[in-house]
């Protein structure tokens, strides 16, 4: 069954890595104002279908409103903390729209917007950030892993889930979201390497938003781009203008379908920007210029998509109004349902540590119950 391993000197000229390297410039369809930009370098991508762009538009408008509502709720003490993804809507929504229901999403703490785009109830999605001990939704039912906080540690899980599915002959893909800072963590590299060696259908989407809390990208890497990190592992990589929804959708769809078709893992770097502070508790004036934020706000992904769709005659004033009012309704519902103090049953603390509690946990549960009964 097992063949003896072979080890040879490499050929004089190694096979070209060109097929793995990202394009020299990030893939873009739109310029900063939403007008058509010159085509992508590979010529490999097509404008996503209009119907998909319309769905993306509605979801991005909704996502942004939800995100603003969540930030507002921190001020009223209804959320313990909230890391905003405002300005990253193209990546958040694009990642979800590229996936089928049967695919898996591995989000971080920043990706609440992606959770609701995936159809997870917003109150469930915000459970963790409300300060609860659990993620709030059922990862098995939603095929969405709990939001991961220890940076990049969920990346090897995505590889495992994808590889497991492939082993059973399923065509499931796993997409894992990572920040620019997270690419410095060892688990990111181990995950890329494992994905390549096991040919696992995983898409790594690095949302390079310029900062890891206060630390700029220049302190994370000296590589030409984060996408270049794929080639050393044999992972095909791509760079995309992360604020260009057409480009993000085109590249992610291509990446997901290529992984699904057996092409192995793909690494995508989306160049974007964190226009809000790291979280509501951060003071970004200590480490960046406001001018820089303003420059990036002018590359707003929603405005760019809106301009493009209007110019194409695929979005009317009524459509825009409808999207906004749906978003308002959604936000009002979130506001109302998060109006009450988060509660929890302390007895449940002992319930899910193991499939069934150890004698020691039963004992401690009884002690706590006794204390509460006094």
């Amino acid at each position, binding site marked *: *069954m*097992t063949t*003896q*391993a072979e080890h040879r000197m490499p050929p004089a000229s190694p096979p070209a890595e060109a097929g793995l390297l990202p394009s020299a410039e990030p893939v873009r369809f739109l310029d900063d104002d939403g007008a058509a930009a010159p085509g992508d370098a590979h010529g490999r991508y097509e404008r996503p279908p209009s119907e998909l762009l319309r769905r993306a538009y509605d979801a991005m408008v909704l996502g942004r409103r939800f995100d603003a509502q969540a930030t507002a709720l921190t001020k009223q003490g209804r959320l313990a903390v909230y890391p905003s993804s405002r300005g990253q809507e193209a990546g958040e929504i694009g990642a979800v729209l590229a996936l089928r229901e049967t695919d898996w999403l591995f989000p971080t703490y920043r990706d609440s917007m992606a959770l609701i785009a995936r159809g997870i109830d917003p109150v469930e999605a915000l459970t963790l950030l409300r300060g609860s*001990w*659990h*993620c709030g939704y*059922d*990862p*098995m*039912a939603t095929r969405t*892993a*709990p939001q991961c906080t*220890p940076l990049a*540690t*969920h*990346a*090897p*899980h*995505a*590889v*495992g*889930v*994808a*590889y*497991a*599915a492939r*082993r*059973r002959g399923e065509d499931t893909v*796993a997409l894992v979201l990572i920040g620019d800072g997270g690419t410095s963590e*060892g*688990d990111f590299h*181990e*995950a890329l*390497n*494992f994905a390549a*060696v*096991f040919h696992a259908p995983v898409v790594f989407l690095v949302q390079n938003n310029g900062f890891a809390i206060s630390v700029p990208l220049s302190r994370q890497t000296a590589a030409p781009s984060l996408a270049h990190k794929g080639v050393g592992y044999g992972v095909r990589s791509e760079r995309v203008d992360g604020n260009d929804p057409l480009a993000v959708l085109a590249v992610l769809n291509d990446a997901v379908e290529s992984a699904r078709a057996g092409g192995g893992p793909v690494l995508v770097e989306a160049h974007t920007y964190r226009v809000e502070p790291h979280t509501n508790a951060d003071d970004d004036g200590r480490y960046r210029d406001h001018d820089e934020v303003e420059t990036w706000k002018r590359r707003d992904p929603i405005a760019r998509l809106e301009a493009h769709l209007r110019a194409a005659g695929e979005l009317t004033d009524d459509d825009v109004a409808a999207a906004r009012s749906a978003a308002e309704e959604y936000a009002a519902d979130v506001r109302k349902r998060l109006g009450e103090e988060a509660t929890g049953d302390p007895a*449940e603390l002992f*319930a*899910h*540590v*193991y*499939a069934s509690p*150890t*004698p*020691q946990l039963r004992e401690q549960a009884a002690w706590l119950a006794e204390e509460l009964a006094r």
Partner: protein
Amino acid sequence: MTVTMGKALNAALRDAMREDETVLMFGEDVGPLGGVFRVTDGLTAEFGEDRCFDTPLAEAGIVGLAVGMAMNGFRPVVEMQFDAFAYPAFEQIASHVAKMRNRTRGAVGLPMVIRVPYAGGIGGVEHHSDSSEAYYAHTPGLKVVTPATVADAYSLLREAIADPDPVVFMEPKKLYWAKDEVSLPVRTSPFGTAEVRRPGTDATLVAYGPAVPVALEAAAAAEAEGRSLEVVDLRTLVPFDDATVASSVRRTGRCVVVAEATGFASVSAEIAARVQERCFHSLWAPVLRVTGWDVPFPPPVLEKYQLPGVDRVLDTVERLQFDDAPDPRFLVAR
């Protein structure tokens, strides 16, 4: 038949893989080589490279891959090559393996086993002899198991693989070659039960893993000197069998914990605390411990001074105030 612990572990893996095709074995050199201790010998040949395979050399990646596969229908068993080489995986173990069920409110269980050859006694060089059980036992959500007998090695590993929760399976590497008469497959008592390996009346020696044979040898030697020592083998550190330990100590009235790991903030410290909480009124002397000194494990030249041996155990037993004299080491000057 005569079986070594290594062979019993190998048989447990083989039988589990035969019974359930979702059971996988992977790690470093576990494929054609059969693992550096040969515990996975022949598994790739029998089950193919899909079921028992080598991975890239990266422990966090190995454990992380296992997490994902356990989330998606498999029961992975992974081998950490040596105790101290599991540390790169510690973040995966502490933040994900241990917490996944809890942080998903019970929705995602991880039926996986992390096998860790551990502890000293085989003349290993630096970084090959750590007793790392306290790190795992201290982490809620993990079960921590360590066999001391050949039969337990088989049975506890089978139980670990079948368990719905993640199990850190600590294999005392100096016992890999220990032999016993066992007919496999064998089933011993389940997780959470300690075993009285030798009954006695004067004092209880509580031990686990590599310290169990030491405690038994000490008890045999003590008998010659007229002391009757009971030996309790914990078998599983988590869940812990308070009942068996406490009932033994209540009967004997004296207790020494024997462990190879360093003593400070250790499993042996936990055992001593639990015994005094439960047995205070039955104790004739303070609970004492024989552990490794609180120093980094000294590789083979000085190893014999680090490992708790029979003499040190017997010396400690004699400090249990049989003639009503307190241990002078613990007297505070007034």
